[in-house]
């Protein structure tokens, strides 16, 4: 267990890096996921098609494939960015497809009359989404979206072997690999620090869920 105390620096830096990646990707995937969800319920058929295609392609691909295609595919067509950028982009693109579906389930759970009433007072599609549909969909979608976001925090570990160094898992690999520490306590430590991210996230979610409950 000394390995955790002796290398607390490395763990803590990794924790901050992983937390940072997670927060950036959370915001990004919530925004992108909302846009894709809007596409999927749009009255414009081509937008719906784009949204459906996006979800069906991305959601059904393993994250590492998405990551690989972005990190190694984009440079071959001349787009060179940092692996941090590529990694976060891939995680956002991947997670957004799940956020989209969680949100869409939230949208579908809203009685059709809500959208009709909004249309009846003259709100356009985007106004309808923004003021009537999405605020309610977000609330209904909090539990499934929360699960998606927590999964995303954990998925972010894969960036550690995709050109991003210094995150929790990357540092664990340094400790167990070149530094030769026993992996069991190292990974216990990694698990602990991940829990330090995901458990508070779960508590925040529970709080939001209670706050946002809509009486019907």
């Amino acid at each position, binding site marked *: 267990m000394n390995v955790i105390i002796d290398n607390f620096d490395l763990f803590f830096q990794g924790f901050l890096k992983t937390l940072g990646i997670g927060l950036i990707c959370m915001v990004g995937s919530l925004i992108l996921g909302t846009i894709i969800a809007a596409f999927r319920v749009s009255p414009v058929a081509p937008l719906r098609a784009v949204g459906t295609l996006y979800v069906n392609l991305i959601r059904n691909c393993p994250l590492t494939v998405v990551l690989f295609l972005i990190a190694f595919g984009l440079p071959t067509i001349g787009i060179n960015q940092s692996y941090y950028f590529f990694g976060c982009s891939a995680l956002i693109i991947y997670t957004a497809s799940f956020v989209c579906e969680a949100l869409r389930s939230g949208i579908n759970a809203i009685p059709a*009359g809500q959208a009709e009433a909004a249309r*009846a007072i003259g709100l356009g599609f985007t106004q309808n989404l923004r003021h009537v549909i999405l605020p309610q969909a977000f609330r209904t979608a909090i539990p499934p979206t929360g699960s998606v976001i927590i999964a995303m925090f954990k998925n972010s570990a894969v960036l550690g072997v995709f050109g991003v160094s210094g995150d929790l898992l990357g540092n664990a690999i340094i400790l167990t690999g070149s530094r030769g520490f026993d992996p069991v306590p190292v990974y216990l430590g990694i698990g602990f620090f991940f829990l330090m991210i995901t458990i508070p996230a779960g508590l925040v979610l529970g709080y939001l869920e209670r706050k946002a409950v809509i009486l019907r």
Partner: protein
Amino acid sequence: MTAENVAPGTDSVASNDVAKPGARTPLVTMTSVNKHYGALHVLRDVNLTIGAGEVVVVIGPSGSGKSTLCRTINRLETIDTGTITLDGKPLPAEGKALANLRSEVGMVFQSFNLFAHKTILENVTLGPIKVRKLKREAAEKEAIALLERVGVATQKDKYPAQLSGGQQQRVAIARALAMKPKVILFDEPTSALDPEMVNEVLEVMTSLAKEGMTMVVVTHEMGFARKAADRVVFMADGQIVEEAEPNAFFTNPSSERARDFLSKILVH
């Protein structure tokens, strides 16, 4: 209300002569409107003109197409053939123009459809602020006045689920009125209410009618039809079977279908 009471006992089904809007300017006209749900022909060659300030009550057995007819007027339902015009202009296709049109056509739903995540006041001010581009203060002032008129101003900071059905429906009427519509469509506004709440809603509607609001009301409330309607439209199987001034319709319906329908609902 109108001076033109047509003598009862007129046999004609060709209703355009009966209970005509007369001097009224036509506000809504439906011409040869047809609509299908798959194989089901829900509107069959419907022709209907609603004059400004007129109160038209649409009745008929369930499945007769009366709700569908009501919902085509603000294009919540699209039609297959025919034309519908509002103020002389045909209904635009989906988009900005349609949204503008809808803001001029109020709608009150059977299930109220108040925005569940917004307070009563916010429900009423949303349209004025976002569509009519009113300042919040002005919109709230108007909204409170409307809520007072329908008798629920004291509930303005509550959420819809905290109100009774009757209160919710009155809020829905205030929400429609807040858009200063040219016509309000009522789609079975009392059908989802407990019986003791029906009257409070009908009273609001009656007073609106008296003030000269143009209204299309789909309802089973024959009392309201008698008291407030300028004209009764009877539908069955997707067709307008009969139109008449209420007194004439209820005392001496000209069609067999209407007589049959009335006998079933008025017996008890």
